[in-house]
């Protein structure tokens, strides 16, 4: 009985040790996932935000990106735009927050691939955004490239992934907000 007790105790201690190790020294993949989840939370906005809160949130959002970030976003329903600077992201975030009432952003699927040198990573994820007043959500697959800069994982490139690759002819002219999607977007 004593041996069984000892074995159970050793197994429990080992499990606790492994758990503590993963908590204290998380893998880059785990850190990136957590960071991206934080990004989604920061990008979300609640109704009736003050200008100061909006500015703080926009600054916080910009903090997830490197200074020379490259954003190449192509959304048939929205627009095609590219941003090459962190300040531009902050301006865009401020503008978006002032235009939309309540915005809920989620990344329901995140696939992270860390480079062998563990200094860069690529995250393929689904962005799901719900705007207040709209019945359906916006869904888009995106690819984030991250780099470890000064011990912090920062986004250096964002690009849209074309799941269904038809490109409308009026793509660059017709920019209208579309709503559709959800847990199973038809």
């Amino acid at each position: 009985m004593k041996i069984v007790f000892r074995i159970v105790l050793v197994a429990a201690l080992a499990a606790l040790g492994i758990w503590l190790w993963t908590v204290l020294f998380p893998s880059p993949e785990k850190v990136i996932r957590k960071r991206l989840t934080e990004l989604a939370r920061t990008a979300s906005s609640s109704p009736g935000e003050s200008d100061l809160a909006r500015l703080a949130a926009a600054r916080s959002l910009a903090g997830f990106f490197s200074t020379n970030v490259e954003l190449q976003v192509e959304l048939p329903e929205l627009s095609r735009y590219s941003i090459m600077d962190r300040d531009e992201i902050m301006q865009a975030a401020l503008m978006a927050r002032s235009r939309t009432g309540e915005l809920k952003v989620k990344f329901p699927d995140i696939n992270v691939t860390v480079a062998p040198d563990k200094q860069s990573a690529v995250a393929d994820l689904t962005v799901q955004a719900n705007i207040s007043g709209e019945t359906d959500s916006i869904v888009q697959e995106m690819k984030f490239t991250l780099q470890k800069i000064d011990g912090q994982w920062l986004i250096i490139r964002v690009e849209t992934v074309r799941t269904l690759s038809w490109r409308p002819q009026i793509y660059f002219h017709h920019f209208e907000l579309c709503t559709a999607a959800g847990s199973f977007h038809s």
Partner: protein
Amino acid sequence: MPTQQSALAPLAGCVKLYGVMTHDQVEQSNAGSKQPRLHRWVRIAVIGHNPKVTLVRVAVLIVTCFIVFKFILLPIRVEGISMFPTYKDRSWYLVNQLAYLRHEPQRGDVVSIRLAGLHVMFMKRIIGLPGESVAFENGRVLINGEVLDEPYEKSPCDWNCPPVKLGPDEYYDVGDNRTMPQELHKHGETPRYRIVGKVLL
């Protein structure tokens, strides 16, 4: 003491007298005997005759449900109107993930298309197969220049799209609701690996 005895004597008689059960007492007694029996039946119904066997059954049921609904039949909820009227908004369906193990997707199949994962997917109908040319001309679908018969298409549409040549591993997917503006309707070529399974009606 004798006084006390004599005083209690009538009470003793009373006890004896009421020792013969009254109607209420009979009912109470019956209820008392029924209660353990009922309790036993409830226990058997919930836990079964043999709790260990029931536990094994519950475990098997949970594992089976997990395997079936995770790897075979994926429950999904439709959000959006691009498959209307065939599939209505906010309705639930199942995706058969094993549908294309033995054969490749067919024209007319309604399939689920993955994005980064399986939590959010697109639901579309396959109209173009690998190697074919797909075009829209005044709302009609042209496959290799021939008009495609689409019995599921109920509403007129005015879509126009130049021919798209599909690659050897590409399918052309589109929703059934062609009444919505073309630029708001997500459709186009998708590689085979993105097709998760066939949606069951």
